[in-house]
């Protein structure tokens, strides 16, 4: 990380004003307007009548956005620890594929991100995850609890006892300090643990020893989360991740929710056409899935884009990890938890010339470019599963620069070039749209009222970029990043290391 000679001085953390910046604040329909941002004690305030005592920071000609919000990442907890240990070679890379918790905080801040959620923490792992997150500097942070795998939750779903289900979810979130409820492969752990390997192909197979199906698990959980009034709707990693033909499962997942708010995680991994485990028929199943998504405003999603290179896959979907590990023969870590699910971890290398990987890359971009409402779509790589979060600027340029995208497209597997709809997609994201999918939309979808915007009352989480025609370069190294009004990074270098807050959901009493 370089520090130019003209680095700005550390800004005071009390009262200051960013003067004359080009503001992108989609929540307030400010799209490239020149304005000032006033900050008092860590919060954005209206322009004050008395401006004495404010330090003036000149940001004329620079782009000002809210701090980034990563809605779906994996930064802490036992599976991330396993991810660090399973590929020591990738730890020595710069940046490390699975950074230490301290490095993760610095890298996120240097990138202009100020809030992150770990999207899959087993309920029994919540205490240790919180201890680890206490070591994450700068960022505000929260966890989604894999409460849907709890044996008692499943039993309540099986009984159709909605009151008990709400009580259990409420108690679990309070005890585990969670922000949201996550389900990974609904009902999948029951199949995984009861010996029927590889035959879980739809949402309508009753779970072993129960009458309930994956579809019912989804429906009842989503309703319970809605009834509890949690800030974020049910966060769904649906079944059959990574398998050819799984677009049907994704569409069925959306169909079964039928008007209930829900968030679909890393849809790229769930949008494949093709026959049963047949690589040659592998292809894109985005079109029918995105058509359904575009027509159903209660649904939101994050993409889980893959980018080429080496990384580590980690998931609460132990069966999916086993499938991949068996196919590739790489080191594989799995751990079954008592009375809930488990996890799977393995290293992976995405290659441009691999048919499957090239399809995955194209499918993710196809989602970005064909989903019509950026307010319901979040930029993610499912870090580190699809790619490292530091690759976000590269991904942003792929979305906003069609020529750059065409160059990359020309390098991938020829069979994908000839068949992918991506070849005909010319859409280019605007700066405002990039701002939406990296901060405004994820904050709104996560239910963070004081983040993702620059209006009065918002946390003063602010990122200042130097304009650059190369958007990857621009987004990779913000000129200044403020967290709660404190300068935390400038030109890629850390400046202050505040602790950051742990975000826990306001949960109604059981």
């Amino acid at each position: 990380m370089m520090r130019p000679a003209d680095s700005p001085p550390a800004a005071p953390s009390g009262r200051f004003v960013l003067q004359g910046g080009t503001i992108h604040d989609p929540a307030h329909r400010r799209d490239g307007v020149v304005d000032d941002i006033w900050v008092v004690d860590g919060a954005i305030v209206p322009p004050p009548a008395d401006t004495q005592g404010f330090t003036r920071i000149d940001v004329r000609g620079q782009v000002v956005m809210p701090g980034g919000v990563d809605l779906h990442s994996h930064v802490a907890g036992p599976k991330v620890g396993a991810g660090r240990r399973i590929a020591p070679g990738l730890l020595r890379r710069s940046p490390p594929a699975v950074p230490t918790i301290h490095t993760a905080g610095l890298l996120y801040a240097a990138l202009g991100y100020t809030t992150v959620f770990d999207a899959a923490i087993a309920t029994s792992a919540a205490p240790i995850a919180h201890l680890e997150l206490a070591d994450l500097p700068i960022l505000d942070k929260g966890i989604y609890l894999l409460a849907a795998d709890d044996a008692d939750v499943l039993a309540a779903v099986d009984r159709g006892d909605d009151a008990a289900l709400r009580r259990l979810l409420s108690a679990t979130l309070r005890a585990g300090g969670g922000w949201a409820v996550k389900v990974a492969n609904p009902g999948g752990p029951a199949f995984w643990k009861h010996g029927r390997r590889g035959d879980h192909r739809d949402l309508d197979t009753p779970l072993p020893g129960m009458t309930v199906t994956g579809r019912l698990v989804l429906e009842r959980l989503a309703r319970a989360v809605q009834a509890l009034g949690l800030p974020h709707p049910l966060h769904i990693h649906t079944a059959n991740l990574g398998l050819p033909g799984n677009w049907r499962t994704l569409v069925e997942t959306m169909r079964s929710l039928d008007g209930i708010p829900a968030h679909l995680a890393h849809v790229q991994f769930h949008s494949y056409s093709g026959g049963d485990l047949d690589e040659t028929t592998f292809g894109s199943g985005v079109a029918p899935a995105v058509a359904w998504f575009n027509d159903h405003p209660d649904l939101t999603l994050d993409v889980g884009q893959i980018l080429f290179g080496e990384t580590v896959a980690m998931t609460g979907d132990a069966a999916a990890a086993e499938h991949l590990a068996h196919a590739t023969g790489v080191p594989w870590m799995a751990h079954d938890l008592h009375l809930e699910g488990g996890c799977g971890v393995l290293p992976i290398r995405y290659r441009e010339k691999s048919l499957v990987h090239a399809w995955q890359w194209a499918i993710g971009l196809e989602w970005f470019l064909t989903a019509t409402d950026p307010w319901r779509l979040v930029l993610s790589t499912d870090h580190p599963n699809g790619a490292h979060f530091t690759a976000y600027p590269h991904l942003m340029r792929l979305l906003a620069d069609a020529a750059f995208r065409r160059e990359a497209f020309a390098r991938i597997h020829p069979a994908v070039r000839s068949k992918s709809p991506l070849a005909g997609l010319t859409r280019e994201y605007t700066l405002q749209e990039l701002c939406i999918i990296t901060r405004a939309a994820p904050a709104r979808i996560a239910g963070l009222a004081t983040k993702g915007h620059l209006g009065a009352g918002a946390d003063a989480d602010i990122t200042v970029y130097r304009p650059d025609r190369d958007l990857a370069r621009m987004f990779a190294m913000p000129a200044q990043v403020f967290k709660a009004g404190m300068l935390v990074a400038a030109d890629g270098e850390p400046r202050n290391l505040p602790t950051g807050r742990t975000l826990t959901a306001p949960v109604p009493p059981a």
Partner: protein
Amino acid sequence: MTGPASSADATPAAGLCAACPLLCDDVALETLRVEPACDHGAAALLAASTARPAATAWHAGRPILDPSALAHAADMLAQARRPLVTGLVGCTIEAVVAACDLADAAGAAIDAGAIESARAAGPTIARAGEVTAAWEELRDRADLVLLWHCDPSVSHPRFGERFLDPPLGGGGRRATIAVAAAPPQGIGGAVRHLPAPREAAVEMARAVHLLVTGRSAADCLFLPRPLADACTELHRAIHGAACVAIVTADASDTVGLEPWSIVHLVRAIAHEKPAFQIPLGPGIAAGAGSPAGAAAVLAWRYGAAGAVARADRLAPRLLPGEADAARLIARGEVDVVLSVGHPAPAVAAAIAARGGDLGIVALSDAFAPLSWLGVDGIQIRVQSLLVETAGTLLRGDGRSVRLSARREADRPATADLLHTLCGAVLERQLRPAAEAAP
């Protein structure tokens, strides 16, 4: 919720025995009676509950006052050319975090002395992975348990009673087969013993792997006939089981072939049916507390479970099989050792072998001077882990357990003392050179 693990799982366990990594949470400690702890746990709990030691710190084996001990310890660490932080087992996760802070401040190497960090070929997880489960999963689901050259009744005295003896969930029967030179002691129920020397463990795992993946018994004739027959019997048992657990102990094999062979066998079985390994580790031999907790904290701080050549949360240097505590001490690459909790047996042996040229600072809840401390070591007594400390521990299978204090302490918690020591070391490092000069 049903059972203690079904919710966020750090609920206070008033009856927790932290005398070994099993962390039995069903122990009732009364004034002079511990029920139903094992002999090891009962002795440790009773000793911690009843002893009233007079001294709080020792220097060269003689009692000294706390402030003097702390100042001397801080001087040693601040002046060290290359310190090592080790132990990290008989203490809470909060104390391990504080030890990492101190290691960062002192530019120390850090390693808990686990054998996985010392393997010449690197940790098994990086070569093959690990397929494991919570111990209750074994208890409730495994209808076939293979005790693979291990005897839990010796290493983890109540493991059999708590996890092997209870009936399976759903009421089925569990078969237990011990593969070892001698039959295990003290495991209840019928255990089938297949005699096999430890030296044959890798070849036997390979043979069973071949059978599981569809090869014939004729392919296993690289083994002597009795061992080949044993492998055939193991394969039959695996084939007939619904869920297989393979319980292992730490292999002393420094290359790491034995753990590698077991992971591959478990992976092959797990592709067909539920299967997992239960790596028990050294158990009582590791002493009280939480080896898994040390591994977890080091992984989030530095990216590895141990063998951290330089503790630096931004750019840690990791050298498995090279920068483990015992090797660093034996090669004379460290001049001061900070032992938090208690060191692994191999590390204690390496310290004792170095003799008097090694500075030692030991934070321990022991009541008397430690035998391995050396001629000039500093030892400061901290809260008893077993009866005075509150905090978080990780059981050997990674489950969080909340430890609560049973009695008021007259000593600082290990974490608090480490914070104080860290501050003292930093203060000495920042002291202007002129002031420090004579």
